[in-house]
C-alpha cells in the first residue's frame, strides 16, 4: 500500500488508473492522481489542531489563514457527516475522532480512491459502525475504497469484493457471502479451526484479587479509578474496553511497573501492590506485554537468550556470574519444538521472526515456569490467523492447569473466544462483569460507558440497527 501512495518505489509492475499506467515518486503525485490513504498509525501531528493538520501540505498561500482553513474544515465535516472540533488539539481527541480527522484529510484532497489500512483496530464497536456507515456513504458518492483488515467479520459485512493476500501475493478472490472459515483458510493456506476448543472453566479459589486500585499515568491522569475484581485459578477473566481506557496501566500496575496510588493487589494472598516487577515475576506472575516490539523482547538478542530473559539467574541457566549456554540452548530447542516457533535456528536474533513467532517466543518464555497468574495484554495483536489459533489454545491450556488468567483485549472476537467472564472497563472504572455470551451490541455500549442494564434496554429498543459485528 505504501507503493500505491508513493512512499515506497515499486521494484517491478505498474499501477493503472483510468486505463493509463502511473508511477508515483512521492505521496504528492499519488494524491494528485486521486489516491487518499487512511493510515493505521495516524499521520497526524499531535500538537497541531485539527485545522492545522488538515491544512498541512495545502496551506493555500505563504501566509497562513486559519479563519479560511477552519471554515473549510467545517464545510468538509458537515458535507461528509463527520463532526470534528476544528480548534481541538489532536492529542486531546479520542482515537475514533482522530481517525475521522485522518479521513477528512484524505477527502480534503479530493481523493477518488481511499485506502483504509487496518482502520478498526483501535475503535469501539460503535465507532466501527460509524466508520462502516462513512465508508458506505463514500462508496455511494462514487469513491473507490480499499479496506485492508484481518478481521473476517468486517470484511464480510462491508466488502463488495474480497481479495486475499498472503506473504505479499494474491492468493484468491472471494465473495462477501463466503464463510469465515473459507476466508481464513485462504488467508492461512490450510484449514483453520476458528473456534477455540474450550472446556467449561472449573474455577478454583481466588488467586488474584484487586481491591480499590487507583493508578495514574505519567501525565498524572487517574486512568484506573477504584477497580476491584477477583480472578480464580482455572478461569480466564477478559478485560474488554477500547484502547486507552486504563487497561495498559492496569496491567503495568499488576506487574509492578507502575506503583499504584492506592489499593491492594493480592496474588495467592500475598500483597504485590508495592512489589517490583522482579519480585512479582519471582512470585509467579507471567506477563505478556501489550507492545511486543518495545516491551516484549530485546530485538538484537537471539531467540534462546530471549527465552530466558526473566530467568537468567535461575540455577538452571546460570552458575554464579557465568551463564550456562548448554542449558540455555537445550531449553530453547525444547520450547521451539513445543511452541512451534518457526525459526531457522534458536541463535538467530528474534527480530528476524514474524510477529506471530515473536509472540510465541514470549508466551513460551512466560509459560515455561509454574505460574499463579498470567497477565496477557493483546496477545494476538498483529498476528496471523494461524498463530492466533495456536496462541489461544496455549492460553486455554494454561488455564486448565489452574492458573488464573487475566487477558486484556480490545478485540471482541478474542474476548468471545477465550473469556470465562468479561470485565468491561471505561475510563478507568469498572462498567460491569458479564458472561461471555453477552450480545456484542451490549458489550459495545458498555465499552462506551453505558451500564449493563441500560445497555440491554438500548439494545432492545434498536433492533433494526445494521449489524456489522455479530
Amino acid at each position, binding site marked *: 500500500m505504501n507503493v500505491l501512495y508513493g512512499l515506497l518505489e515499486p521494484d517491478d509492475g505498474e499501477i493503472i488508473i483510468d486505463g493509463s499506467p502511473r508511477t508515483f515518486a*512521492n505521496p504528492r503525485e499519488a494524491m494528485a492522481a486521486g489516491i487518499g490513504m487512511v493510515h493505521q498509525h495516524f499521520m497526524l501531528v499531535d500538537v497541531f489542531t485539527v485545522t492545522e493538520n488538515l491544512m498541512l501540505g495545502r496551506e493555500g498561500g505563504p501566509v497562513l489563514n486559519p479563519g479560511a482553513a477552519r471554515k473549510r474544515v467545517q464545510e468538509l465535516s458537515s458535507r461528509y457527516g463527520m463532526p470534528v472540533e476544528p480548534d481541538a488539539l489532536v492529542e486531546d*481527541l*479520542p482515537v475514533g475522532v482522530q481517525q475521522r480527522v485522518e479521513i477528512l484529510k484524505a477527502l480534503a484532497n479530493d481523493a477518488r480512491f481511499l485506502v483504509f489500512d487496518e482502520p478498526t483496530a483501535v475503535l469501539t464497536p460503535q465507532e466501527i459502525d460509524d466508520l462502516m456507515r462513512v465508508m458506505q456513504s463514500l462508496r455511494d458518492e462514487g469513491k473507490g475504497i480499499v479496506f485492508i483488515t484481518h478481521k473476517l467479520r468486517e470484511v464480510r459485512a462491508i466488502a463488495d469484493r474480497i481479495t486475499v493476500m498472503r506473504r505479499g501475493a494474491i492468493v484468491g478472490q472471494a465473495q462477501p457471502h463466503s464463510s469465515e472459515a473459507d476466508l481464513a483458510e485462504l488467508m492461512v493456506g490450510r484449514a483453520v479451526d476458528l473456534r477455540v476448543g474450550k472446556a467449561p472453566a472449573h474455577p478454583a479459589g481466588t488467586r488474584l484479587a484487586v481491591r480499590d486500585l487507583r493508578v495514574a499515568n*505519567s501525565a498524572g491522569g487517574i486512568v484506573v479509578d477504584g477497580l476491584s475484581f477477583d480472578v480464580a485459578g482455572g478461569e480466564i477473566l477478559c478485560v474488554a474496553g477500547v484502547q486507552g481506557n486504563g487497561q495498559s496501566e492496569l496491567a503495568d500496575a499488576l506487574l509492578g511497573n507502575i506503583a499504584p496510588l492506592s489499593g491492594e493487589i493480592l496474588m495467592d494472598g500475598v500483597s504485590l501492590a508495592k512489589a517490583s516487577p522482579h519480585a512479582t515475576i519471582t512470585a509467579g506472575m507471567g506477563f505478556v506485554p501489550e507492545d511486543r516490539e518495545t516491551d516484549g523482547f530485546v530485538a538484537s538478542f537471539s531467540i534462546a537468550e530471549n527465552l530466558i530473559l526473566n530467568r537468567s539467574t535461575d540455577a538452571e541457566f546460570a552458575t554464579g556470574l557465568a551463564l550456562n549456554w548448554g542449558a540455555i540452548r537445550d531449553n530453547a530447542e525444547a520450547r521451539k519444538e513445543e511452541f512451534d516457533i518457526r525459526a531457522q535456528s534458536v541463535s538467530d536474533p528474534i527480530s528476524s521472526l514474524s510477529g506471530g513467532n515473536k509472540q510465541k517466543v514470549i508466551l513460551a518464555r512466560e509459560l515455561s515456569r509454574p505460574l499463579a497468574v498470567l497477565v496477557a495484554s493483546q496477545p494476538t495483536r498483529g498476528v496471523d490467523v494461524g498463530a492466533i489459533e495456536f496462541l489461544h489454545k496455549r492460553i486455554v491450556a494454561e488455564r486448565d492447569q489452574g492458573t488464573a488468567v487475566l487477558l486484556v483485549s480490545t478485540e471482541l472476537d478474542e474476548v468471545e473466544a477465550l473469556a470465562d467472564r468479561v470485565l468491561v472497563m471505561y475510563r478507568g472504572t469498572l462498567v460491569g462483569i458479564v458472561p461471555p455470551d453477552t450480545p456484542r451490541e451490549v458489550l459495545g455500549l458498555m465499552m*462506551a460507558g453505558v451500564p449493563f442494564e441500560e445497555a440491554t434496554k*438500548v439494545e432492545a429498543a434498536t433492533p433494526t440497527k445494521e449489524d456489522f459485528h455479530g
Partner: protein
Amino acid sequence: MTTVDPMSLMDDAPIHLEVTESRAARRARLSTGGLLVALGAVLALLAFGARGDAAFALSDAFATVPLPTIVVPGMATALMCGFLTAIVGAGFLSGKLTGSLRTWAAVVAGFAVAFGFIAWAGSGSAFPFPVANQLSGTIVLATPLVFGALAGVLCENAGVVNVSIEGEFLVAAFTAATVGSITGSLVAALIAAMAAGVAMAALLALFSIKYLVDQVVLGVVLNLLASGITGFLFDQLIQPNSATLNAAPQLPRVAIPGLSAIPLLGPALFNQSPLVYLAVLAVVVVALLLYRTRWGLRVRSVGEHPEAADTVGINVRRTRWMAVLVGGLFAGLGGAYFTIGSTGGFIKDITVGNGFIALAAVIMGRWHPVRAAFMALFFGFVTQLASQLQSLNAPMPSQFLLMLPYLATIVAVAGLIGRSRGPKADGVPYTK
C-alpha cells in the same frame, strides 16, 4: 419504553480525565521549592557577612538627567530578601501556590534573589552599584545569545539538534573581522558573517540530514573544526598581519531619537548597536515565521512527525535543510557581534562557550523563539552581574563570580524548568 439513540451516548468531546499532579510536574514543583528555600537560606546566612550599607546608583556620571542613588542597609535587605525567597519556596513545597499566583511568586522570588544578592555583595563598597550599567550590559551580552538561540530554535523545531551554534558563531566572528578589515565595510562584514554561518549550517545539514550522522557527535565535531580552523588561520595569517587583517571597523551605537532620552532605561535600551535592534526584530520575525506562515507550519510538522509531513507531500529533507540554513543566517549575525559588534578584532576562541549557553536558552525556552530570547536575557543579566560585582570588590573570589553564569544555568535547567517536551522527532534522522 425508553428510546435512547445509541449514538447520543457516544462521546466526541476531548477527554478530560480527572488529573492529579503528574509525576514530572510534582518533581518540578518540589525541586523548584527546594531550590528556592536553599537559595533563601544561603542568602539569609550571607546577610550576616554584610559590611554596611549598599548603594544603588540609578544613573551614571554621564547621564543627562541625574537620578538619585538609593542606599539600603545591606544586612537587613539581604536577610529580608532571603526570607521572602524561602517563603515562596515553602509555598512551592506545600503545593498551596497554584495558577498565576505561582508564576508571580516565582518572579518575585527571582527579583528577591537578585536584589538580595547584590545588596549583600555591594554592601560596604566605596562605589554604588551601577544599575544603568547592569541593564545595558545585560542587553549587550544577551544579543549574541538571542541570535544563537534563534538558530537553535529553527533547527530543532525542524528536527535537527544543533550543538554547533558555538562553531557557527566562531567562524562567523572570524569571517566578519577579516572581511571587515580587508574591505573596511561593515555591511560587507555582516553579509560575510551571515554567509559563514550559513556555510557552517550547511555542513551540519549535509551530514545530519543526508548522511544521517549522530547529531550530537556531529555538533561537537563541527565545534572542534571551527575552533581548529579559525585558530590555525589566526596564528598563521591574521596575527602576523594584524594591522591589515585584524582591524575591522566597529558597528557604531545608534540612539533612537526620543526613546533614548528616557531616564535610566533610555541609554540602556535605546542607545545600542544596530545588531541589538536587529536581534529584537529577529525574534519577532522568527516567531511570525514559525507560527503564522506555511513555511513555519511545515518546519514544525517535520520536527514533530516527519512521516505525516511526507504523506501530505512535504519534502521533509528539503524543509529541514531550509530551517537549518536560515538558522545559520542568525547564528552568523550572532557571531559577527563578537568582533565587529564589539572591539572589531578577532582573538582565538572569542566566543567562549556562548553558543552552548544559547543552546541552553533554547531548551529552557522550550523551543519557542520568544521564551528562548527571554532566557538569553537572563543569562546576559547574570554574566553582567558577575563582572559588575568584580569591580565592586565583592566579598568572594573572582573565580567564583566567573563561574556564576554557568552555575545559574545548571541551577535553572535542573531546578526551575525541569523536564520539558521538545519536538518529538528532534534529532531523529528521516529515512524512508
